[in-house]
């Protein structure tokens, strides 16, 4: 600028030269910088501020231009140059201002890019760290799985623990790993397993040390001092810097801990202590993931131990059961021997005891017939009385034991009920009259004369019940009522366990004995039927008897499918004994009064079939006559036909049975069967059709079944066979 004021100054040409040169270089630089920028930006892939670059480039170029034009202004220059110079300067000014303004916006952005870059770098470092962590955790997990697998693959307690220690030692590169188990007393911990020492012996540590309590108090692994008693497992040499020690509790779970609603974490009481030591002088530290590994392993060990414990328990239980089995077997065999011995004894005694008794009784009664002085007579009477009592006692005891066994069986026969009761009355009247008691017997109008049952035992029951009534009454009257029990009255709500089932062939006899005696208090009633239990009332203490009577009665009544019970309103109010027994109905045999041998409850075959209308089809006159005779003998009404047509003509719903001889020559008898069946639309109307044949082969039978016949009879037919067949047919409507 100084140049414009003084263009002719020839002074400092040197200065001007330098300025000239500097301006030239500046211009050069200014032109080359944008070029370089453009070159490098083109080379780089990412540059967000192109617009800025353009601006900047323009600024620089213009600056360069200015300086370049400056070159011409050192010497005299024309007005054009001046104008150009001015224009260039103006432009430059404009652009530089614009650029300056722009930079205010740009530079903060650029700076923030930098910070972002820093931030990302930090983030990357962090992620790297985390990656490292995850990797280590995964490693740990793998180790844990492997360890668990090793531990859980065995059910032997020692193997489990040993393996745990070995594996842990290996995984974590431990110097020492030890397990302290609680002793039986629970007051000390004993070193049970150790990694380096093969047979650790003798180390015990009291369980209530603070460090131990600290470890037991949490389920985490706890760092403990290497100087604590549990950690001092190796002799310390002077220069060792012991490695860090960690201890963790191992819960010892019992079988009883495993209840569904009661998870074991709160209910274990016993722990073992696992101590792990890092190698000394290694400057290693326990990392978090290693601690976690240790905790998980401790848990797994607990589980594995409990499994082992369960196994041990179950083995023990099984052994125990086997022992018990053997013992029970032995006991059973002994019991059987005892029962056999008793039965033998009874069998022998039965005979052995009764024989002398009978002898005594018989001879004493004979003796009574002879001439005796009064004293002698008294003595003989006493002997008689005592011996009959004894005989009764013996009989009762023997009966009872047989009843209990279930080996007693009733002697079923036809009996005359009226005479049974009359006999009872005869026996009891003398005794009652001595005590001035009145006995009344009431038999219902429909009282059956005959029945089927065990006469002797029935009388025994009635005598016993009536006798009790007499025994325990000092005055008044005894009334005996006997009737046939009606079905509705049988179902007594008071005796819900008694289910009488009246049937066609039996009825229930109900006998009630009321007395006005001393009565029984309600709490004594259940004891009445128990063996040897007597009513302890002092007045009756010496009334004799063994207390067996009612027990035996009850058992006999039960054998007769009945029920016995006693009611009393209380002491002094008398009592009522009632029993119901099942007796059979004797069957009639023509008009003979002679009673039949009764029949057991099993299948009863009808002996005659009066009024049974039978149609007999047989073309052989002889066999027709024979079969007809057979049927007539059994009481049937027989119509005979000798041909198919006749059969179809004659058959009607009156006929209950059609017997077809299969030898109807030339004609398929099966055909007739089908035709007969077709005649009757309703199944119950049609008669039963039975084939009579000499063929025993299955084919015939099958054919008969196929055409819908109801049975096959194989010739020759005896009377009994025909009787059974007819009976079956009528009962079941089918014979097959």
């Amino acid at each position: 600028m100084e140049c414009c004021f003084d263009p002719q100054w020839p002074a400092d040409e040197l200065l001007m030269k330098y300025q000239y040169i500097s301006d030239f270089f500046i211009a050069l630089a200014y032109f080359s910088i944008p070029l370089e920028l453009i070159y490098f930006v083109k080379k780089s892939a990412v540059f967000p501020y192109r617009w800025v670059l353009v601006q900047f480039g323009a600024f620089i170029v213009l600056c360069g231009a200015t300086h370049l034009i400056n070159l011409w202004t050192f010497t005299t220059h024309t007005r054009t140059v001046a104008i150009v110079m001015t224009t260039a300067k103006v432009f430059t000014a404009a652009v530089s201002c614009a650029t300056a303004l722009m930079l205010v916006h740009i530079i903060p952005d650029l700076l923030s890019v930098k910070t972002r870059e820093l931030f990302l770098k930090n983030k990357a470092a962090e992620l790297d760290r985390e990656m490292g962590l995850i990797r280590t955790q995964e490693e740990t997990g793998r180790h844990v799985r492997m360890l668990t697998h090793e531990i859980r693959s065995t059910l032997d307690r020692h193997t489990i623990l040993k393996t745990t220690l070995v594996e842990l030692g290996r995984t974590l590169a431990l110097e020492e790993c030890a397990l302290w188990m609680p002793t039986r007393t629970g007051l000390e911990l004993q070193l049970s397993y150790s990694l380096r020492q093969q047979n650790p012996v003798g180390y015990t540590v009291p369980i209530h040390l603070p460090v131990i309590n600290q470890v037991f108090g949490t389920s985490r692994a706890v760092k403990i001092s290497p100087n604590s008693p549990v950690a001092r497992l190796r002799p310390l040499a002077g220069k060792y810097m012991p490695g860090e020690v960690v201890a963790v509790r191992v819960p010892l779970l019992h079988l009883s801990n495993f209840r569904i609603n009661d998870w074991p974490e709160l209910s274990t009481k016993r722990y073992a202590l696992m101590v792990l030591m890092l190698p000394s002088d290694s400057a290693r530290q326990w990392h978090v993931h290693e601690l976690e590994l240790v905790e998980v392993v401790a848990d797994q060990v607990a589980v594995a131990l409990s499994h082992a414990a369960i196994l041990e328990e179950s083995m023990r239980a099984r052994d125990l059961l086997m022992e018990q089995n053997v013992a029970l077997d032995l006991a059973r065999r002994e019991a059987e021997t005892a029962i056999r011995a008793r039965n033998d004894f009874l069998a022998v005694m039965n005979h052995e005891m009764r024989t002398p008794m009978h002898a005594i009784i018989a001879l004493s009664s004979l003796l009574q017939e002879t001439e005796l002085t009064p004293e002698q007579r008294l003595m003989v009477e006493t002997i008689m009385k005592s011996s009959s009592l004894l005989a009764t006692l013996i009989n009762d005891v023997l009966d009872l034991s047989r009843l209990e066994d279930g080996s007693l069986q009733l002697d079923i026969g036809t009996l005359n009920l009226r005479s049974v009761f009359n006999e009872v009355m005869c026996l009891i009247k003398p005794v009652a009259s001595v005590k001035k008691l009145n006995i009344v017997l009431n038999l219902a109008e429909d009282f059956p004369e005959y029945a089927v049952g065990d006469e002797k035992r029935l009388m025994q029951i009635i005598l016993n019940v009536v006798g009790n009534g007499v025994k325990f009454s000092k005055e008044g009257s005894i009334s005996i009522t006997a009737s046939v029990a009606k079905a509705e009255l049988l179902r007594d709500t008071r005796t819900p366990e008694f289910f009488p089932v009246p049937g066609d062939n039996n009825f229930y006899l109900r006998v009630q004995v009321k007395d006005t005696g001393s009565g029984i208090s309600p709490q004594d009633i259940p004891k009445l039927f128990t063996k040897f239990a007597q009513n302890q009332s002092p007045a009756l203490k010496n009334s004799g008897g063994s207390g067996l009577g009612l027990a035996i009665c009850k058992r006999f009544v039960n054998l007769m499918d009945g029920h016995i019970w006693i009611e009393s309103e209380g002491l002094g109010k008398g009592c009522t004994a009632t029993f119901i027994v099942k007796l059979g109905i004797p069957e009639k045999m023509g008009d003979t009064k002679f009673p039949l041998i009764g029949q057991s409850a099993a299948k009863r075959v009808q002996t005659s079939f009066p009024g049974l209308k039978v149609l007999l089809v047989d073309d052989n006159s002889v066999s027709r006559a024979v079969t007809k005779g057979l049927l007539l003998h059994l009481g049937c009404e027989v119509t005979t036909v000798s041909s198919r047509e006749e059969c179809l003509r004659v058959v009607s719903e009156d006929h209950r049975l059609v017997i077809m001889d299969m030898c109807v020559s030339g004609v398929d008898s099966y055909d007739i069967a089908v035709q007969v069946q077709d005649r009757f639309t309703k199944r119950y109307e049609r008669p039963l059709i039975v084939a009579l044949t000499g063929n025993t082969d299955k084919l015939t039978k099958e054919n008969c079944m196929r055409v819908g016949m109801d049975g096959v009879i194989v010739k020759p037919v005896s009377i009994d066979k025909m009787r059974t067949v007819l009976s079956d047919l009528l009962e079941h409507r089918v014979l097959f």
Partner: protein
Amino acid sequence: MDALQLRKQLSNYTAQLFDEGFLDEQFTQLQQLQDENNPNFVVEVVTLFFQDSERLLDELAKSLVQPEVDFKKVDAHVHQLKGSSSSIGAHRVQRSCISFRNCCNDRNVEGCLKSLQEVRHEYSLIKDKLETLFSLEQQLLGAPSE
């Protein structure tokens, strides 16, 4: 003869018939069927048997001399005869009927004729015996008892 002796003779004779196989269990059954409702049951049935058998035997003889023997018919007749004899317990007759039937099945005319002879023979034997039996029984019924 008095009743006791007659009875003894009758039972001996009956026993003999059973022993020799002329009669079997079925005959006993027949006897059991005879009661006061049916006093002549056995006689009636046996008479029926005789009548029936004679008819059948004649029929058989006629059929077997035909030039073309109708074995079916022959078989049917023999079957009938077998049935009748078994119904009254004529054991030997029944047995001979069985062998007759076998010949029939074989369509052996010669055999059939021979069997027919046999059956005839047995029949006449049993007829004889039964008639004797019945006459003994009649005597017993008529005899004076002690």
